[in-house]
């Protein structure tokens, strides 16, 4: 290509590229601004927030709001901070994510590799549960929890989240395992492996990406859930999200905005961390087919 013909080809390219980057930058700032505001204001004293503008960095840096939010703030009747509720959330999220993921994996395995008459109908019904609005199931759920004697407990919340999560996890694993070579399962059957042995030794080791997808999805949803937590949580099972709401909307005394900001960041931190640490597996898992035989 001659140099005279090169210039017009490259120039619009550059302009386009500049526009592209400018747009991206604007959006990045737009999305990061709330986080920036929260972080800055969580590091200011309450006086400074009252006087100053929201966007300015603190004149006087302090981490006291974080300490208050974590362990001293008044939530409900006691001044415990968010810590006990953070622990409630962890105790709820870990078993709920683990169990719903395992059940989803088993469902996907059965629905693709041990199919039975009507398997597709069963799958359709499981899938349907993804589309049922939370509000509809609130009262039936409350009755079931009452019947089981676990209303107001972490176990109750775990059960609800598992029931709600199975639809999604089943969908993830079914689609992933559908492209898993059936001949591998057959080879293992010939080798004498049974249902669980095949699952454990053949299928699971190749399920890394989809395990990540399922775990991240479930973790984010369950950690961020407010409705079930508010509806079914009790003194010793209220999750972080509900506690944060109680903190922010507590009517007694002055509104400590800096503490509220710190608390909100604390509540969002685990999901942020999970995504930053394993987000690329999430993308990979969503785009990857299964293993080649």
């Amino acid at each position, binding site marked *: 290509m001659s140099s005279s013909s090169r210039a017009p080809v490259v120039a619009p390219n550059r302009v386009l590229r500049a526009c592209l980057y400018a747009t991206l930058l604007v959006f990045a700032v737009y999305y990061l601004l709330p986080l920036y505001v929260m972080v800055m204001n969580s590091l200011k004293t309450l006086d400074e927030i009252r006087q100053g503008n929201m966007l300015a960095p603190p004149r006087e840096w302090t981490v006291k709001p974080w300490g208050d939010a974590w362990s001293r703030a008044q939530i409900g009747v006691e001044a415990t901070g968010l810590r006990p509720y953070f622990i409630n959330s962890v105790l709820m999220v870990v078993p709920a994510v683990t169990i719903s993921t395992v059940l989803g994996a088993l469902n996907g395995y059965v629905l693709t590799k041990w199919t039975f008459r009507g398997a597709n109908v069963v799958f359709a019904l499981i899938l349907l549960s993804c589309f049922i609005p939370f509000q509809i199931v609130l009262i039936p759920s409350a009755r079931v929890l009452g019947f089981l004697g676990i209303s107001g407990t972490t176990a109750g919340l775990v059960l609800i989240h598992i029931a709600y999560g199975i639809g999604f996890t089943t969908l993830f694993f079914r689609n992933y395992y559908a492209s898993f*070579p059936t*001949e*591998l399962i*057959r*080879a*293992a*059957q*010939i*080798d*004498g*492996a049974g249902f669980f*042995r095949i699952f454990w*030794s*053949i299928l699971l*080791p*190749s399920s890394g990406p989809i395990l990540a997808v399922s775990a991240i999805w479930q973790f984010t949803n369950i950690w961020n859930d407010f409705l079930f937590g508010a509806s079914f949580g009790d003194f010793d099972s209220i999750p972080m999200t509900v506690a944060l709401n109680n903190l922010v909307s507590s009517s007694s005394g002055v509104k400590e905005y800096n503490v509220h900001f710190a608390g909100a960041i604390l509540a969002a931190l685990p999901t942020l961390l999970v995504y930053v640490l394993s987000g690329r597996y999430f993308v990979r898992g969503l785009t990857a087919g299964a*293993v*080649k*035989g």
Partner: protein
Amino acid sequence: MSFLQIRDLEKSFGGLRVLKGLNIEIDAGGFLVLVGPSGCGKSTLLNAIAGLETIDGGDILLEGRSLTGLRPSARDMAMVFQSYALYPNMTVARNIAFGMEIRGVPKAERERAVRDVAETLQIGHLLKRRPSQLSGGQRQRVAMGRALVRSPRVFLFDEPLSNLDAKLRVDMRTEIKRLHQRLGATIVYVTHDQVEAMTLATHIAVLRDGALQQFATPVEIYNDPANLFVADFMGSPSMNLIPAVVERDGDGLVISMTRAREDALRLRVPQGLRRLYDGLGGRVGEEVIFGMRPEAIGEAAEAGDGDGGGVVSGECEIELVEPAGSDTYAVTTLGGVEVTARLRAESGVTAASRHVLTFALDRSVYFAPKDGTRLA
């Protein structure tokens, strides 16, 4: 009594009848090849034998005992899959030893068995690798190793060579044949490649749309095909299948084939060929499909030469000559189809000229054009 018996086997997927009342049996040490076009039910049959598919009717017996209801692992069979089906997360050694691991064979014994098999198949240097680090041929060997490491009652192979390139395929074919001879094992082998079937089998079962077309030795299948489908499918280059008319000439029969721009080629059936007179006597004036293997059509130095016994001759226009190293193929047109003759490499036949070809009618076969049944 046969070692492996398949009796009136039926299998359907939903409403689709995939295996239609199959009857096949093979003695211990036999090499049974299931051959047929893609989708005819070969894999389904093999999976049924392995216990990986349930059956809807009939029975499969091993050493006289029904296998119905037995789990795959309880049938004591080893299988090599078309995709090789190596466990991607395990090393080659563990792939080979996995079956023993499940059966609780002690570690030392497993390692010895793996070493022995690796030596037989020359894959010792690959034992620590993963399947993804192997070439196609190496994967194929590992898959064989996984089967060979046990001494099963039956080996099952599902198109094990179809993913290899041509050269490797021929090498592995020879190797499988050698293994069979050395081990004396009973093998059921699926392929859609009729050359593989012919070279490996002691018995061939030709399938089409789930129905057994012929079950016989390779020689019988080749020389004495049960119907038009088998004749057409088996053999390479394939059999010439020429539309012809049976005519009566005095007290003899004549096979008459039309030709372009000249009179029909008329081949007089020698009186000695009773088989042809019996099968075609009632078909005078009717059209038949006249089947001749390329090597049953030869070259005569002069007209009349080679006549006698079952061989007759006729002058034909040669349109094309294809030297193929060890042989030369000459092509002419009879009855509206191209007819290939397999001649000696040093044949003097040239294209676009007339030559006398000999037809070994004692090796000819005849089919009804309508349904492909064998007439003679």
